[in-house]
């Protein structure tokens, strides 16, 4: 299960809405091993695309240095789908490589409501999990 503060949940949704129709992406960091997402870190989608996202390679290195220095890890890795459901695509699955992360998908395809779902993706196997907003 993903347990996430309301404030961070709202920030993820706001980021996805702001970048619509392009995909938005980022992480929520937390102390290593804690499984508690506490620090919202929006990232630039270097692809600036409605169907693809990627962290810029220099941004990625800077992010991991910062996480290392803080003894943090990416507890949540999030991105949005802007025209399809909030479910990991084949591309998402092939890239997913943080075995401890909750992969959050947000869909902004509906203007009035936002889908927010969380998944574990390990060795290509997707498992949806409940989301508890604190």
């Amino acid at each position, binding site marked *: 299960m993903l347990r996430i503060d309301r404030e961070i949940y709202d920030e993820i949704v706001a980021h996805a809405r702001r970048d619509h129709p392009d995909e938005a992406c980022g992480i929520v960091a937390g102390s290593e091993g804690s499984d508690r997402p506490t620090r919202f870190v929006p990232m630039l989608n270097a692809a600036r695309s409605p169907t693809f996202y990627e962290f810029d390679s220099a941004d*990625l290195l800077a992010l991991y240095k910062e996480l290392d220095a803080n003894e943090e890890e990416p507890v949540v890795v999030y991105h949005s789908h802007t025209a399809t459901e909030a479910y*990991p*695509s084949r*591309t998402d699955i092939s*890239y997913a*490589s943080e*075995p401890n992360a909750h992969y959050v998908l947000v869909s902004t395809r509906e203007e009035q409501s936002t889908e927010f779902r969380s998944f574990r993706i390990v060795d290509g196997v997707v498992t949806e999990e409940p989301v508890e907003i604190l």
Partner: protein
Amino acid sequence: MAIEVKIPTILRTYTGGAKSVDAKGDTLSALIDDLDANHAGLKGRLITEDGNLHRFVNIYVNDEDVRFTGSLETALSDGDAVTILPAVAGGSR
């Protein structure tokens, strides 16, 4: 000649859980062969069957993405620092 190589979480199964290991080589290609000699299987996670750097990983030498410095032919020298990170990417297709 020892070069420190930082290993991401997903590949630590190959290094007995170690976050960084020492390796040697005067090019990135040689370094990866040396890594694989001590941590069998690691090479297959970094390099494709046709011998190119896998698109799912980024490798940096002293903070430079090797895609901009000659890829696997990037020269290394003593004291360089190598960082391997999984690319974070995806999309709706």
